[in-house]
Structure formats: C-alpha cells, structure tokens
C-alpha cells in the first residue's frame, strides 16, 4: 500500500523580488521542481538523487511541508496534505520527521541530549506527564545506541559527528513517525562510521518502528546500498526511475549514464569510460519545447530539440529487458527505439 504518493508536484521560486515588478511585470521564475511523481510504499525506501541544484532537497521539503507546492498534490495515507493547516498539520508533523545533513549545525548547542529529544515531545504535545516524557526520551536514546546514563546530559560539543547524527535520529524517532525524510544523512560524516549510521536506520530502526524512508543524496554508491527504488533528477525533473540496483548498474538515460560512470571507484586499476557530457548544469523556467538535458547530451538528435520527453515504462520494450516500473524520460529510449 502506498504511504506517500507525490503527484505532478511543481515548485516555482520567484527570482526577482520587488513588489511592483511582481504586480505589473512578468517576474522571472525558477522552476526548482517540475512535475515530479513518485510513490513510496509503506515500509519501503526511496532515493532522490542528482547533482546540487537538481531540486531533490526542494522535493524533500515539499514532502515535509516546509514549502508549499505551486502545482500538484501530495497524498499521505490517501489524504491530500497540500492544504493541511492547524491541528491536522500538527498531526502530520508527528508522522513525518526529517534528518538533516549537518548534525553539528542542526543541534541547539545549549540543549543537552535529553533536552534535544524532549523538545519535539513538548512542541507536538506527545506524552503528557513528565514521567512519560522521560521514559520516551530514554527509550529513544537507547534505540539509537547512545547509553542514556552516559549521554543524556551531554551537550552537542561533547559529542562526535556520528553521535550527533545518532542524536538527530533519536529526536526524529521519539515522535514515532511513519515516514523519515533523510537529507544527505551521512555526507558530513567520516567514511568509517557512515555504514553504522545507515545500518542503524535500515537494520535496527526500520523493522522496530516500521519506518518508511525517503533518502535524498548526491552519493549514488551510498544510495545503491540502502534504497529499493531511486529517482534520478535533473533540473527539477525526474529523468529515470526504477529499482536502485538496476538504474545504477544498467542506466538507460544519457544523464544517468554520465552520472554513474563519473562516480569514483576505489580500485586503482579501474578504467573509467570516457565522459561524453558537455557543459554544466544551468537553470530552467519550465520550458516544454525541448528536452532539458539536450544541451549537454552526447546522444541528442533532432526530436530532442522539439519536444520534452515524458517518463515511459521501458520494461515493455523487449530489447531493454528491464523490470516493471523502470521509467525513462528520453526520446532515444522507450517506444521509439
């Protein structure tokens, strides 16, 4: 059953501020997220990947309701959450929690570990009595492998990076959420402890709390090891989506191909394929008259300059031999080929 269903979600930002220009002129717009769809099943995990500026974090924030979408809707447990307010919004906040990229910056330096976790309980009015709150906090600390006796009174500066991130996870799970949005959860951490944080979320907390996870990361090799399905984003649009293992090892979209072949491989004898991609990432106002990747695409043909390709399921075309649900937005892949 899908827990989260994102349907045609779009977010535009105004680039030029100024009231008069807003009222009279045609303000310049940046389309950060452009008609993104995906579904996330209960208990499943999904990854949003792409370079910086591709709109993956904005998508995460839309799901968190930290931004209002310009278009489209987000269904959570079959309810449209785009227009929630007041009490209903508060109850949505309990069910969806975020883990941020930089644990050092995200923690209040003057709150102890205990206080950090308790803050969420206070704010959302979970657990009424003091005793109940205390029990909840201590349980959360234990769940993230921070021994309450040692850690409950510690301040963030006394913790290592890994411990800070565990604390952040603790303050997310204490509210007993259904969905966790993890925005680059390990990119600020040392390589040797990354696996332990990912294992904590995936192998310990997920079965225990029946979590559904939405990961946002630029690190494809990390995503490949944690998520079931992955969507590759470019300039606000999803260009390829499917099973993570399949998308990342047998990519079809030229952009995914470039991205996966550029990932450094920890093997001195590995020979990279020549990277064909040209230029660098630009911005878009949401034009529909050509493929967004066409200016950089090494394989572009005439049709790419005329029409924006839609996502097409490629499992039906026999030559590709991809699993059901693998979709690619490219004129060269799919029905035409």
């Amino acid at each position, binding site marked *: 059953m899908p827990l989260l269903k994102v349907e045609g979600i779009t977010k535009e930002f105004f680039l030029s501020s100024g009231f008069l220009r807003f009222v009279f002129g045609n303000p310049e717009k940046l389309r950060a997220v452009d008609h993104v769809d995906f579904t996330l099943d209960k208990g499943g995990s999904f990854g949003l990947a792409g370079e910086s500026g591709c709109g993956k974090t904005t998508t995460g924030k839309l799901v968190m309701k930290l931004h209002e979408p310009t278009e489209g809707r987000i269904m959570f447990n079959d309810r449209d959450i785009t227009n929630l307010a007041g009490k209903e919004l508060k109850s949505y906040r309990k069910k969806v929690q975020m883990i941020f990229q930089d644990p050092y910056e995200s923690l209040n330096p003057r709150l102890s570990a205990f206080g950090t976790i308790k803050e969420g309980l206070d704010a959302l009015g979970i657990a009424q009595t003091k005793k109940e709150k205390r029990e909840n906090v201590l349980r959360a600390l234990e769940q993230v492998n921070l021994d309450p006796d040692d850690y409950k009174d510690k301040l963030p500066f006394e913790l290592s990076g890994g411990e800070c991130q565990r604390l952040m996870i603790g303050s997310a799970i204490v509210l007993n959420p259904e969905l966790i949005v993890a925005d680059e959860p390990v990119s600020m951490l040392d390589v040797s402890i990354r*696996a332990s944080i990912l294992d904590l979320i995936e192998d310990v907390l997920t079965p225990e709390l029946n979590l559904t996870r939405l990961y946002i990361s630029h690190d494809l090799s990390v995503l*490949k*090891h944690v998520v079931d399905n992955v969507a590759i984003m470019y300039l606000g649009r999803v260009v390829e989506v499917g099973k993570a293992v399949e998308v990342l090892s047998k990519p079809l979209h030229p952009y995914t191909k470039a991205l996966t072949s550029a990932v450094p*491989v920890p093997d001195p*004898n590995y020979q990279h394929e020549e*990277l064909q991609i040209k230029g660098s990432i630009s911005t878009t106002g949401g034009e529909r008259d050509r493929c967004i990747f066409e200016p950089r695409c090494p394989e572009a043909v005439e049709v790419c300059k005329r029409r924006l390709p839609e996502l097409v399921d490629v499992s039906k075309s026999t030559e590709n031999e991809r699993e059901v649900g693998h979709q690619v937005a490219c004129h060269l892949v799919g029905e035409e080929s």
Partner: protein
Amino acid sequence: MLSITDLYVRYEDGENIVRAVNDVSFKIDQGENLGIIGESGCGKTTMAKSILRLLPSSGKITGGRMDFITQTGEECNLMKMPKKKFNRKIRWNEISYIPQSAMNSLNPVYTVGDQITEVLREKRESGLTRKEMRRRIEELFSLVGLDPKRIDSYPHQLSGGMKQRSLIAMALALDPSLIVADEPTTALDVIVQFQILKKISELGEQLGCSMIIITHDAASVAETCDNVAIMYAGMIMEYDISENIFSAPRHPYSKGLINSIPNIKLAEQKMVSIPGSPPSLRKEIQGCPFQPRCEESEAICKEELPASTNTGEDSFYRCHVVAKRSSSG
C-alpha cells in the same frame, strides 16, 4: 624531491596540547602523486600546512626535518630556512597550495584574473609585462580547461567547478614542482569531480609536477595517486603503492577503511563500519592509537606504540599483530 622525516606538530593553547602530527615520515619523488587519506581530525591538513608554513600561531613544529630539492637542484632544509627566503624562493615557485573549499578561497572583490596576476606580480624576478601576464593567464586557463574569457569574471560569476579550476590555474602559475591539494574535490558534484580529478592526473603527466592530495575520499585517491599514506591520529599507519593499499591492505585500520567505502560497480556489497570513534589528540596516547577500535588487538598493543615495519623500499605499516604474524609465518 621532498622528504619529511619524523615530523611532529602540536597545537598549544595554554595548558592544552593537541598532538596533531606524530612521527610522520614520507618522501615524494619527481612526477609522483601521493594521496594522504584520513578521517577528520587525523592531522592531515595540519601536516600539509606545516610544509607550507601556514600553521596558525598556536601550531608548532616540535621535531623532525624536511628536505627539499629545488628545480635548480639546490638542496635545502625547509625548516631551517629563514621566512623571507622561504616566501621568495619556495612558496608558489616551488611548492604551491590548493586550499580546502575552493568556494571560499577566492577574494570576492577581485576578478580571478587579478588574483592570478597578483601571484605573478609578487614574484618580480619573473619580470613580466602586463601583456605577458595576461597571455600567461590565458595559457593557464586553457591548461585547466577554462574558457580564457572567464579571466575577467568575479568569483561569484563562476560555478564551483570553475572556481576550483581557477585555483588550480593559480597554483600552476609559476611552474611549481610540487602542489599540495587539500580536499580538491570534496564540495563538488560527481561529474565535475570526475573532470577535475582527470585534469589533475593529466596535468601531473603533462607538466611533470608532483602532487600531494589530501582527502577523506579514498575512492578519488585510487583514481589519481601512485602512492597512498593512510593516516590515523596524527600518524601514518600504512604507506604503499595504491594497488597494494586497495587490493591487499595490511593494517587493520586500512582494511576497515577500505571496507567501508561503497563501490558502485559491485552488485552486492555490505558496507562495514569501524566501531568506535578516533581518539582525542589532546591526551597522550598509550600504545597503538587504533587499539581501542581494533578487532585484532593483543596485549602488547595497549602497552607499546608499534614501530614501522618495512615491507619494501618505500612501504611500511605500523602494527604489532601484523608484524608478528608475518615474521612467524
């Protein structure tokens, strides 16, 4: 070309002493790339800064020597050299530095061209005219793959990758024989990172200059470096050619580190992390610094700091257990 022996660096702040670099020795030859891999706080940046005398005033080199052979064949001891002479002869001319986070290393109120001109002008002996300088910068820009039109751009007009390239151009301005690059690709996107790493290895071959690349990203070292040093708690734990480090690491820490790197080319791979966290360098460490996190540790590891065991002319590791195992079998 550069050889560092028994280097010790510590930061002193009143009573607090941080032993950031302990007993580090390595050498680097002409045209060779050395990668120094380590986690945050292991002393890798301190070590780089001590080569270039960029340590803050609390940082002191407390022991060791650094010998350097200039392009003209002059042998000199970098640590004994007076400051003025170092600035005039070595900095930029012989050894240049690409600092961490290219994004914030350029002056926002000058164009990139001006900033490179500054380097060229500082070294008056080159005696270039304005036009010649401009031509030189154009040459440098095309060398690092930047459009020469970008010379008159301000840093905010450039993307992250372009800023990084212009810093590399600046480092190359006076044909140094050694470039020390601190996390050259950390803040960049994969595609740009790939292009920069490729450029770095190409330039090394093309210009014959050596490089020390300092990073926590072992995978990018595997792509560019001939030799690798694994650093932990201010010490080099293992030093070898990169093929050996990545295919058959000897030290338990190197093994753990290599196992924790995800490889996108492998279908099934279990990422393994090393339990615990690195020791604080504020306290004197008894025995092997890795011992509390090491699965193979024995009684002796708590007592005694392991000495380096040589495995080849230029390769060594520091581990009691591995040394014992290899000498008995």
